[in-house]
């Protein structure tokens, strides 16, 4: 019988290691010349969470505003992007090229098709607002990892049930099946 369990290493990529030392000083997003090494799927636009959320310190809730009030965090509309990028054109040619994609998409009224990274099976309900209410608006890292330092977002948690339940047990909150499964 073939029994190969390929478990990829979790949460130890180069960019995340860098972030450990910059807890107090302002985070500087690295210059990335070769995107081939980055973890996670390549997106239609090289949107850098590490620049937006890390270097520029835009709160997660600025774009994913519904996470604190609804079960779904939502993907920001293109209008949200253009709100800033009408004026901000980027400082380097590579940034300018990516921002141009955003502006083109806006002009052509054709939103980008992002590749979904975090997904739960259809029989699981995850109310984002309950978790943020309890753990605070900075608690996204608990499940999504240090997105602030990710040039390209990848999944760091398994998002499997055992992983959910471990946290529920530690925090002494309900682990009744019908809280999530209905």
């Amino acid at each position, binding site marked *: *019988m073939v029994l190969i369990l390929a478990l990829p290493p979790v949460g130890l990529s180069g960019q995340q290691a860098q972030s450990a030392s910059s807890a107090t000083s302002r985070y500087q997003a690295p210059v990335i010349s070769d995107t081939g090494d980055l973890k996670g799927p390549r997106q239609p636009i090289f949107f850098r969470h590490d620049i937006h959320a890390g270097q520029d310190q835009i709160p997660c809730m600025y774009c994913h505003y519904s996470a604190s009030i609804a*079960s779904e965090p939502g993907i920001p509309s293109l209008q949200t992007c253009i709100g800033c990028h009408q004026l901000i054109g980027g400082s380097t040619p590579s940034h300018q090229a990516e921002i141009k994609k955003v502006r083109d998409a806006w002009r052509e009224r054709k939103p980008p098709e*992002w*590749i979904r990274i975090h997904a739960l099976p259809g029989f699981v309900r995850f109310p984002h607002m309950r978790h943020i209410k309890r753990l605070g608006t900075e608690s996204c890292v608990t499940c999504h990892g240090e997105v602030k330092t990710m040039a390209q977002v990848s999944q760091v*948690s398994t*998002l499997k049930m055992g992983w959910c339940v471990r946290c529920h047990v530690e925090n002494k909150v309900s682990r009744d*099946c019908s809280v999530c499964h209905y």
Partner: protein
Amino acid sequence: MTEPINRRRFLKVLGVTGAGTAAVSACGIGPEPTERLIPYLIQPEDQIPGIATYYATTCRECAAGCGVRVRVREGRAVKLEGNPDSPINRGRLCSRGQAAIQGLYNPDRVQHPMVRNATGGGSLEAIDWDGAIQRLSAKVAEARGTGIVFLTGAEASSFGDLVDEWMRQVGGRRLSYEAFGFDALRAGNRMAFGTASLPTYDFANAKYLLSFGADFLDTWLSPVEFQNGFSRAHAFDGGRSASMAKFVYVGPRLSLTGMNADEWIGVRPGSEGALALAMAQVVVSRRLARVPADASRLSAVLSAHTPRAVAEEIGIEQDVIVRLATEFARSGGGLAVSGGIATQYANGAEIVAAVNILNYVVGSVGTLVKFGADLAAGSTNSFADIAALTSDMAAGKVGLLFVHGTNPAHSLPGAFQQALGKVGYKVSFSSFMDDTTAACDMILPDHHPLEQWADSRPRAGVTAFQQPVVQPVFDTKQTGDVVLRLAGRSGTFQDYLQAKHRTGRGAGFDQFWMDTLAKGGTYGDAPTRAVRLSTDLAAAVPPLQQERGSGGEDKQDVVVFPHPVLHDGRGANKPWLQELPDPVSKIAWHSWVEVHPDTAARWGLATGDFLVLTSDFGSQKFPTWITPSVRPDTLAVPTGQGHTAYGRYAQDRSANAFELLDRKANAYGGRTFAVSATATKTGEHRKIVTTEGSPRERGRGTVEVLGVARAKALHAGDHPFHHEETPEYAAEAVAWWAERQHEKAELGDYRGEQPRWGLAIDLSKCTGCSACVTACYAENNIATVGEDLMQRGREMSWLRLERYWLTDEHGEPQGAVNSPMLCQQCGNAPCEPVCPVYAAYHTPDGLNGQVYNRCVGTRYCSNNCPYKVRYFNWYNYAEREGAYEAWPEPLSMLLNPDVTVREKGVMEKCTFCVQRIRGAQNQARLEDRNVRDGDIVTACQQTCPSDAIVFGDLNDRRSLVYQLAGNPRGYHVLAGLNTKPAITYLARVVAQDTPSHG
């Protein structure tokens, strides 16, 4: 530690061995990253992902004009609920209203304009909107002078006004047609009171109800409103003086309305008027009520109708007539209504006039029967007008015909269909390929009512608005816009509508418009118009001898009645309505003919044997349903089925009962729905599709019935049914169970205070209308399985209505008790301990949880459930293009995103809308509070027109459900099994003192 191999352990071991092979493909984390997330370009202001938005609009499934609120999630309409602001339906909805959304996302909608190809064999082909309108403009110019007719449904609205304006402009005329019109009511009101309008009826304040065939709970005028009023008058509410109005139903068969009666008078068809006059005669001659002075005019009419003179004609005893008259008059609030089948005989108008006289002599006209509302349902053209149109068409006098919102080729099968062929050019605005549309030359599909701007005037004082709640699903166009363009006028129909309502409002208009859209309409009281008895009453005397067709001995009286959910057939393309068992017969997906057991025995018929009914006008074949709820000398068939087109759910299904009917109008200009016909056995047989297990409950305590005297004598703390709970032999088991509960309570989530969710269902209020069933399908993504699987008992209906006949001392049915049967959320549930994988388990808040992703489909739980309320997915009903696909595109757009769509091999059942419980809990926590009583409303409770269902926390002593659970009438179904259900049923109370059932 060695564990004995029990069932659970065995499956665990099995699971580990099997997992090895699966692990190879399941390596890595997360799903394959192929899903795409497409953001909004500009996010709509009122759309937040994960949060539902509600829009107020109006239901257009019938002319009643109920207000609805549409729940929209991420741009999709997922559920309709009644609008509490509307004075008509007060937040409730019927099955047909609930299912309107299946029209919006119907897979068989006409998706774009089409035109019949003149050359290529006359097939329909796609055309663009501009091209179609240009072509049609030319046709209109061409047809001027050759007869232009615009046929609509009941359309008392701005759209109707616009069409009228346009028809005047092009020299045409508009007619409106409903298959079940109210011609007899208008004619009868004119006879008795000199006004051809329709009044409103105040059921809520009546103290005695008498219906002459009027099916006011299922199809008559405004069923949701009337049911709400009826339950307030007829339900038992602890001896309040206004409650427990006795309800007597007069008619040849028990309809949904009839089976809620306390007494059934099965008179000979057509003799209802004689009964009403005989009752009036008793009231006047014995001075049982304060008779209005001008009633003296009636003396000639009434003296011909003494009980002695007419008893034989009616087919009931004289003293019954006297008793009914006495009860009716002495109640001090008698309301008699006539409609349905009683008004569809050739003497229907006279019957209405007779019932009007009965109301008049007891003083109910002006108090309970209020003229002045002028219901829009009565605004349609008479059947005589439609028959005249048909002749005009057949004679080639109609050059151009437009059809909108009605399907005459189905309800007038022979005549209209043939006449259609003689019309120069036929244009349909239907968004469905119905029987009429299929014969048209051009199809310009209208938006669904949920995609439209519109208004309607269901009654004086009320204007109900419609606003688009979703983007159009297909390339359809609002007919109002098309008409404006054809008329050469600028602007859209929305502008037209606003302009109409802007008049006289000046600067305040914008605020008015926003407020009105938010509320769903403008709601005012209708003015009450006093009416007096007409001076010429001789015409109101119903002929004593009812004409009996042309046939001889071998002919049967056949009545054709509107199907309670499919109505005139318009509901037939909606799978929820097809799969919803008819509330009386419990038959789904096909028509039937009702035959009395005595007649069936005489003819040697069994249920399911086909009978061919042949009238002078047509012949159709129906399977027999043997039932005591129809007179022995009468056969009854429902309309609704037998479409020649109208999509995959409706087409070629069963037989069209309209085929049997006369195409000519009768004396008062209406249509006669009773015919005489021969019935012939064909020797064929089919298994009927029914959910009925047994018509009787055989003393098992499934339903409990109390006589009114006994019910009134009950005091708080009485428990007339509780002797059945926990019999002695179960005491030991109960003690053991209590100990287990104690142990359990020490574990994790089960510790501490928890709610215990429960339901109270008042059988005195439940009418069996089944609105809750459709609401449950809509809320919980329940699959429709289709005719074949339903025939094999594989329907998924989490909530079903069980109907048990109530019988008198002779065993004759006098009505029925209806009991909604759903998961009882037992405290000591038989399903839980037998589940090998803990998919069926007890939640801390007292539900019998069902974890779909754990379920492996052993079906042990279903075998062990004494209530039979667990349903198994035999197929993958969500599979694209699958053999039993329940949601073909775009029907899947109405799926509730808060509820898992179950897969093949999974058991499912009611969990008290656990998604609504969790939603309310989430919301309460966000607001730093606890869930309050009334925060959680289950889908069945929300829609119930008679308020029979109440949900809440049984551990909260201030909750309504706690109070109801302690009601002396309360009982638990099969309580002797010691299942400790969370549902308390409140016994049905009937007017007889010694009721018997089963």
